[in-house]
């Protein structure tokens, strides 16, 4: 009976997610969770050492070394290389990854590699991230890879060990949510603002238990970099994963990359990828629409990414309910702000342009366009951290580093850097930062640090003005 129903289901219109899910479920026996095959496993230094230890203790090997790719990103210094890692514990962690990759035969892009970078930047740029794949990594922002029409999600270290050992994961089937974004984004309104707008609207747990599929004209119009930004931030709405069906934009981005399908099988793969798009009439567990024209450049004011307002507005009044009021008061106290303050009057001490959310070439171009011909405001320290060696190299080739340096920004080596402050790039207590990263949690960028999430253009403008300012009024030089 179950088999018959399953066959019937396969003839019903399916969503993008359902097609990939069905293609990867190996078994779904009674009393067990469906077992999902993993096509690509990305590994970094922070969430993997205990997993490799587990393999060793059990006498297990890495089942599919060719499907496992490692790099160092979370705690690498962003000083000019080769530079010694001064933090001995960070050094030990990086060396542990090197030793583990050697022992288990896993390909590693280490600090000296021209392909090193943030794991969610290098997967796509190396052509590893492909439509229709299941992709996991011991990092919550793995949702980034969904921009290519892949099912990609973050896992914990126990699951890292499980995937290393078995290339499979028992998974509860998530529910599906369609977010259709109609119209087009206005000038100065980026994918980051769209992402913040979604989180502001549905809340930090609004998509918990769901896989989001983004559709609509405004999404189709986005570049791959912008789609990655949008999918990347979806975890901040609690989503298990986020995805966008592959199209011509995807194929054009992927063609000719190092690990993309070669010329001899390219057309065949593209034809297969096209079939993954949701069927007409596919049913989602939940659907919502957003009008792109109603979005503005956003700035977060609190200590979670749902606390977001348009740059032209003020910090909201305290909510009426006692519990919500206490939460808001606590956030404002931590942030050193008061309800009713105009966002554009908030001054910044630091600016960070980087992270797996916004450190790709398009992001750096957007920020450089704003910075060109200006100087960083006195008293502000601003840094640009490219997402990968490839991004850094491409940016330097077109002179973006010069624009940033001339404007007084620091131009640094690739890594996660001040997004989470595991390396020496951190905020000091009380410092306020305009950041293109993804989390404004207490202490995220350094204990006592105050983070406001913004787009790359808004961050660059804040660096120059010394306070938040509406990028739509910017005089480009």
């Amino acid at each position, binding site marked *: 009976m179950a088999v018959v129903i399953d066959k019937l289901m396969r003839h019903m219109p399916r969503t993008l997610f359902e097609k990939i899910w069905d293609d990867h479920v190996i078994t779904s026996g009674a009393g067990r*969770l469906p077992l999902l095959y993993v096509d690509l496993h990305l590994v970094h230094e922070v969430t993997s050492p205990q997993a490799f230890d587990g393999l060793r203790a059990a006498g297990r090997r890495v089942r599919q070394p060719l499907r496992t790719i490692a790099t160092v990103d979370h705690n690498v210094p962003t000083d000019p290389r080769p530079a010694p890692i001064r*933090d001995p*514990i960070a050094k030990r962690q990086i060396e542990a990854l090197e030793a583990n990759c050697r022992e288990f035969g896993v390909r590693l892009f280490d600090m000296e590699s021209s392909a090193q970078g943030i794991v969610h930047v290098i997967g796509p740029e190396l052509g590893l991230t492909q439509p229709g794949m299941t992709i996991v990594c011991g990092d919550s922002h793995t949702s980034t890879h969904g921009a290519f029409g892949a099912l990609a999600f973050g896992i914990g270290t126990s699951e890292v060990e499980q995937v290393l050992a078995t290339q499979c994961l028992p998974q509860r089937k998530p529910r599906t949510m369609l977010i259709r974004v109609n119209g087009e984004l206005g000038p100065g309104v980026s994918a980051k603002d769209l992402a913040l707008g979604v989180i502001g609207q549905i809340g930090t747990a609004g998509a918990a238990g769901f896989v989001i599929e983004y559709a609509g004209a405004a999404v189709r119009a986005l570049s791959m970099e912008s789609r990655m930004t949008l999918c990347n931030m979806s975890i901040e709405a609690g989503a298990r994963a986020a995805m966008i069906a592959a199209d011509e934009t995807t194929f054009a981005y992927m063609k000719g990359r190092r690990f993309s399908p070669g010329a001899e099988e390219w057309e065949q793969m593209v034809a297969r990828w096209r079939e993954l798009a949701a069927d007409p009439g596919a049913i989602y567990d939940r659907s919502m629409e957003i009008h792109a024209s109603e979005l503005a450049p956003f700035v977060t004011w609190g200590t979670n990414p749902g606390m977001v307002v348009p740059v032209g507005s003020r910090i909201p009044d305290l909510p009426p309910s006692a519990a919500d009021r206490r939460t808001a008061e606590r956030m404002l106290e931590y942030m050193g702000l008061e309800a009713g303050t105009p966002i554009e009057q908030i001054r910044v001490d630091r600016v960070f342009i980087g992270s797996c959310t916004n450190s790709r070439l398009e992001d750096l171009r957007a920020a450089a366009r704003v910075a060109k011909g200006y100087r960083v405001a006195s008293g502000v320290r601003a840094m640009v951290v490219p997402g990968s060696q490839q991004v850094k190299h491409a940016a330097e080739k077109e002179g973006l580093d010069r624009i940033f340096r001339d404007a007084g920004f620091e131009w640094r080596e690739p890594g996660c850097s001040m997004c*989470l402050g*595991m390396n020496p790039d951190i905020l000091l207590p009380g410092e306020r930062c305009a950041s293109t990263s993804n989390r404004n949690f207490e202490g995220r960028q350094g204990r006592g640090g105050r983070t406001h999430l913004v787009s790359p253009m808004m961050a660059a403008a804040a660096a120059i003005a010394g306070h938040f300012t509406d990028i739509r009024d910017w005089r480009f030089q």
Partner: protein
Amino acid sequence: MQPFRKHQGTVAPLYRADIDTDQIIPKQFLKRIEKTGFGEFLFNDWRRSVAGASEPSFVLNQPAFAGTSILVAGRNFGCGSSREHAVWALADFGFRAVVAPSFADIFATNCAKNGLLTVAVSEAEASQIARKASEIPGYQLTIDLETLTVEDDLGFSSRFTIDEFTRHCLLEGLDDIALTLEHEADIAAYEAKHPVPAAWQV
């Protein structure tokens, strides 16, 4: 994995929404390459001043909650980073269960892999448990995974749900990897039909 069947313990209230894993275990402690020793750093930035002095107002620093093994928290507990270190820290500190209106997905999965039970109750129930834990010295809950009940000695009783597979693994303390490898033939058959992409084999 340590099995979870039934547990009775003192409840510590930390009733705030959206407690993220950066709070549970701040990133400066993620550089260790072992699974042990994280309990000392649980909620570090709330427990200690920058200089390292204990913050007496923080719940886990209060003598009344010494030896606590059940945490009650607000909705969306464990959101943010996938770091399993957050679960290792809670378990190492002595927690066996967290009770909250909802949990972030990755965090809940990580808990299940480490024998730490996540008990989802209604907002009203979580609020009530948190209030009692604040007001009644030594307030305890009993959580029974076999009957899927959570109750106290004062007449509160509620049922919770958990998927059958996770429950089974927790009750028996089963290793997921060994269970998965029971499907070796299925995995191998799948791999035979789905070879590693040609461009990756260089």
